[in-house]
């Protein structure tokens, strides 16, 4: 028991001896402070407009009355239209019997649908549009390249150009007709030439050396006597 009564807490040395003095000093200090405060005049240093409090209540009421909901709807209507305020507000339209008792709302139950965010859907749309544009662009470029590769320069390859751009587009019958026509024309022209008299040809060729004439004849393969004769003689 003696061990249990022993105080386990420590106290500063000389604490209790000086305690009373400390308390008294503190009281004196507070009283001195209060005394100081009490020496300060209690006049209000702030100014208030003249007559302020006299009109304050009325000013506040004016503001309250200005508020849209100051009046009840009844009071408001009475003030603006006594005629309308006197009318019976009972509904004039009829309602089927037991309508409200039997009123039901059919909300169709849908199967649980996956929630897709609107931004995701929008992104999908943009992506699809970009793909379509891309395909069209690439396709146009490819087609353009193919066309340019297939282009034949008529100066470099006239036969090829004609074959590609003319012959292919024209039917064989038309070509044959054309050839026949040109042959006839040519024949007509040739006729004019062969109708030329040998004397005339001789006259034309008199200044041309014989070996030149021979060379020409060999290159062109002209072997008909009449012609050579005409030329040589």
């Amino acid at each position, binding site marked *: 028991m003696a061990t249990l009564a022993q105080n386990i807490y420590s106290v500063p040395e000389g604490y209790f001896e000086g305690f009373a003095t400390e308390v008294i000093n503190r009281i004196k200090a507070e009283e001195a402070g209060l005394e100081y405060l009490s020496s300060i005049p209690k006049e209000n240093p702030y100014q208030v407009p003249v007559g302020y409090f006299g009109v304050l209540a009325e000013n506040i009421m004016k503001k309250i009355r200005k508020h*849209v909901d100051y009046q009840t709807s009844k009071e408001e209507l009475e003030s603006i*239209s006594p005629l*309308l305020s006197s009318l019976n507000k009972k*509904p*004039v*339209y009829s309602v089927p019997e037991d*309508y409200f008792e039997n*009123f039901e709302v059919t909300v169709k139950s849908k199967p649980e649908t996956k929630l897709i965010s609107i931004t995701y859907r929008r992104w999908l749309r943009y992506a699809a549009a970009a793909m379509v544009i891309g395909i069209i662009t690439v396709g146009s470029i490819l087609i353009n390249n193919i066309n340019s590769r297939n282009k034949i320069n008529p100066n470099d390859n006239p036969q090829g150009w004609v074959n590609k751009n003319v012959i292919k587009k024209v039917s064989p019958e038309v070509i044959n007709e054309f050839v026949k026509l040109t042959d006839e024309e040519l024949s007509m022209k040739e006729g004019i030439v062969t109708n030329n008299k040998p004397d005339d040809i001789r006259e034309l060729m008199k200044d041309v050396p014989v070996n030149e004439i021979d060379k020409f004849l060999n290159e062109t393969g002209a072997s008909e006597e009449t012609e050579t004769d005409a030329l040589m003689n």
Partner: protein
Amino acid sequence: MSLTTTTDAELLVQFRNPVTKERAFTSIIKKYQEKLYWHVRRMVIEHEDANDVLQNVFIRVWNGLENFREDSQLYTWLYRIATNECLTYIEQKKKRSAVSLNDVESGLSNKIKADQHFDANRLEWKLQLAIQQLPEKQRIVFNLRYYDEMPYEEMSRVLETSEGALKASYHHAVKKIEDYIKNH
């Protein structure tokens, strides 16, 4: 638990619980169906049209209530949906029948006159005809203030218009209606 004692907050909690969702939704319908019905009926006149619109309203409520942010009263939100559905319905009717606005308004007046209980001598019926002369939005303002006695502050949240503008619109509507009744 009776409808009148279940608060909107409680109904919302119940709605968000899958177990009590349908029961809460039914409670919401029972609590607000008449108010919303008359709000709609005054705009579209005919019961069949009002029924269609009211169905649409509550289907929207079913689909949207889960995400209702509760930044306004449930009542305000419901009225906003109902108002928008009315305006959409009227707009669609205009497009379908390809008539001018004036013809639509006279069409609504004709529907009033076609009501089996219509009595041209009764002021209450004249009031209905007068209301139909107002532009759609002004009609809504008048109905909400006159019949539902909705405070402007709340109306402002329903219609997303300033309170001052709504008050001015209502006062203007009252004058127009008064003139109509006096002259017809």
